[in-house]
């Protein structure tokens, strides 16, 4: 049944009806479009904080080594610092997931599809499992854990891409693609290198990633409002 007829029905059947179904659907559609701006901005903040956290993780060993050498205390303090940073970063995608879950539920309701709320909670659970595994690797395996962690990071990148695809209806913003690809490339490079040359610890891919994420953050925060204004004009 087309909307014009539904509208006519509204007038015929509900003489005092305050509701215009066309306007209701349009309001919901506009709110959904606006969510792209909100989520893009939220991801922009996530990229910025991730870049900052990664920079600290790279710098921290160099800062600790003169005082602690490579003793077990060094690994303990480093693992604790990385875990705290990891938990802080983990909280942001979970907060974004909360907004995204409601957005996807409305989008699905508009398209008469079943809600994928369960899928979003599976993603959240997978994030939690990932962070527990990384923390466990540091505590149990210490210096030998890097290959496993790089392997886990490749899995995390796949999770991020799935999350981005579901949030942006398969139309991932350009900075999202760049951030996810750069993260994946760094993880794969480090994973392969840690197998081929176990004694080599290469910071270069991660330093490059810091700058890429910083660029993505600035791009997202600048372009998100511009895109919204372009759409509404």
């Amino acid at each position, binding site marked *: *049944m*087309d*909307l014009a007829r*539904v509208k006519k*029905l*509204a007038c015929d*059947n*509900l003489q*005092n*009806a*305050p*509701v*215009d*179904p066309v*306007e*209701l*659907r*349009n*309001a*919901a559609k*506009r*709110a959904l479009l*606006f*969510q792209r*701006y*909100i989520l893009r901005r939220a991801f922009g903040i996530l990229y910025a904080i991730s870049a900052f956290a990664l920079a600290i993780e790279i710098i921290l060993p160099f800062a600790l080594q003169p005082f602690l050498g490579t003793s077990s205390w060094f690994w303990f303090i480093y693992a604790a610092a990385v875990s705290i940073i990891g938990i802080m970063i983990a909280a942001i995608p979970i907060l974004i997931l*909360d*907004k995204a879950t*409601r*957005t996807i*539920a*409305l989008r*699905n*309701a*508009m*398209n*008469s599809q079943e809600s994928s709320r369960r899928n979003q909670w599976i993603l959240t659970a997978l994030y939690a499992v990932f962070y527990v595994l990384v923390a466990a690797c540091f505590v149990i395996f210490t210096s030998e854990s890097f290959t496993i962690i790089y392997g886990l990071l490749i899995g995390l990148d796949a999770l991020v891409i799935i999350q981005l695809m579901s949030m942006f209806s398969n139309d991932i913003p350009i900075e999202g693609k760049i951030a996810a690809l750069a993260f994946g490339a760094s993880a794969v490079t480090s994973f392969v290198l840690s197998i081929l040359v176990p004694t080599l610890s290469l910071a270069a891919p991660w330093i490059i990633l810091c700058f890429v994420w910083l660029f993505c953050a600035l791009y997202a925060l600048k372009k998100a*409002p511009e895109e*919204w*204004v372009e759409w*509404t004009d």
Partner: protein
Amino acid sequence: MSEKELRLQSSNSEVLKALGEQFNDPALKSSTRILILISLALNKKLRFVDLLLLTGLGKGSLSNHVDKLEAAGYVERRFLMTFRGPRVVVEVTQKGMAVYANFVKLVGQIRE
């Protein structure tokens, strides 16, 4: 009119009636206020400047809409201290979320 179409008409009529009852409150007799409520329900809270961007309205006009929603108990206005000075944040209430939850149930039943 076929039997299927009649059934669909009846179904849509019920949906519209339910929507009519839901949005019978004068505070919700505006598509702008419904838009604000939907967006707030999706994000729990939004800055006033975000609502300006969302609606494309002027400050005074938007403030009037938020006043009406606040008076009806759908939203709450709060002041947040930031590094760049105080900012107004509008937050959806339980009552607002309840309206939104019903809206989500019903909006999918209006077919395009």
